[in-house]
């Protein structure tokens, strides 16, 4: 186990009656980035939610060990719709004991008094990023962070990710859009098919922790 990173062993995932992936092991050192790819429905979001602790792994999964806290961003900004953006964000900064997020950098400066329900898709995404930054988590899990963002916004996300990695954070991104992640490992979930028996056990189980089915991120970035 490496300090400051993520170790996940032998994860299996089943949603309803469908096995999505199996025997997936991950190791990410501080500063590493991992780009999850795969067609719709292969379990990218499920993997991110598993790693965030929002879904329970399907037995016989191993453990997920994070060194540090992690933040999660998906399509929902998790901000109160009827509140002005500034107030909606203030709720989270108070909960996180964080300083107010500089909205100028995210291109949200003029939207401080606008209720969240009037924001556009891209503006919501930026607002979600503001919440994520305010959380000050050590690691980030981003589910389609570029959805709805313009090219400026995409560049912004890339620079934010680079900054997070430079600070020693692990960043996992599930994205269909091309995203500049220097030195990132690509993880295709099709490489981790569920076991043919349908029981979730068997495929690649004896592979253990090393080597993982695909050489994953190790020691990129600073950290």
């Amino acid at each position, binding site marked *: 186990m490496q300090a400051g990173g993520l170790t996940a062993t032998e994860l299996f995932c089943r949603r309803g009656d469908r096995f999505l992936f199996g025997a997936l092991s991950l190791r990410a050192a501080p500063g590493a980035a991992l780009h999850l790819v795969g067609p719709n429905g292969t379990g990218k979001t499920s993997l991110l939610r598993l790693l965030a602790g929002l*879904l329970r792994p399907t037995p016989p999964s191993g453990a997920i060990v994070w060194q540090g*806290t*992690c*933040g999660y961003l*998906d399509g929902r900004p998790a901000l*109160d719709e009827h509140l002005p953006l500034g107030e909606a964000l203030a709720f989270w900064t108070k*909960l996180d004991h964080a300083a107010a997020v500089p909205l100028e950098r995210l291109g949200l400066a003029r939207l401080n008094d606008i209720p969240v329900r009037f924001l556009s898709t891209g503006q919501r995404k930026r607002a979600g990023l503001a919440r994520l930054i305010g959380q000050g988590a050590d690691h980030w899990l981003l589910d389609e962070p570029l959805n709805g963002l313009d090219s400026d916004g995409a560049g912004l996300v890339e620079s934010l990710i680079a900054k997070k990695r430079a600070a020693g954070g692990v960043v996992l991104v599930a994205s269909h859009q091309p995203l500049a992640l220097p030195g990132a490992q690509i993880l295709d979930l099709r490489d981790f098919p569920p076991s043919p028996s349908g029981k979730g056990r068997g495929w690649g189980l004896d592979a253990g922790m090393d080597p993982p089915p695909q050489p994953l991120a190790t020691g990129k970035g600073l950290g």
Partner: protein
Amino acid sequence: MSTFLTLLRRDCAQLLLGGRRGGALLPVLFFLAVAMLYPFAVGPDAPLLAKTGGGVIWVAALLAAILPLDRLIEPDLELGLFDQWALRGISEELVVTVRVLAHWLSFGPPLMLAALPASALVGIDGEQLRLIELGLLAGTPGLAALGVLVAAITAGLRGGAALSGLLVIPLAVPLLVFGAGSLSAGGEAGLALTGAVSLALLAITPFAAGSAIRSGRG
């Protein structure tokens, strides 16, 4: 502790001041409307109204408590707030406890106030009114807990709002029986039993609603 207060302030702003649809005013107006309609329906028979009015007030209170159910848990679940709380290590149990408190504040005390004009409308005397107020004080926390519990169980289901109303009614029968029963002769024991049912519901709700929300995540 500061987490508790931050959550409570948000919940109160949402439920009490009507951040979403109506706030605390809607159940109170509904409650008063029922109390006002009842004499119209029964006719100007003062002794009959006074005799049955207490029960009607209890039924009206129960129905008024059902109105805000669909905005108790579901919107926060949809917006992803529960996921974000879970990531920060804020347990569903704590969130639900805060929500029960805020929900009670938004309809318990207002209903107790509204019971004053409602009692006047059906011609209830001072002693009966005292029992109604005490009964509501003992019973509304249980109704609040039950509302949050059922809202958590039905959150995310299609037609959850209608279903939660139907689920609350049978579960609230003990509160109604003891609460309205306390209005008849020798009813002090009814008050105590109303309080007991309330306490049981308050004790169960955080854990039951918390695990309902967690398992709803899949």
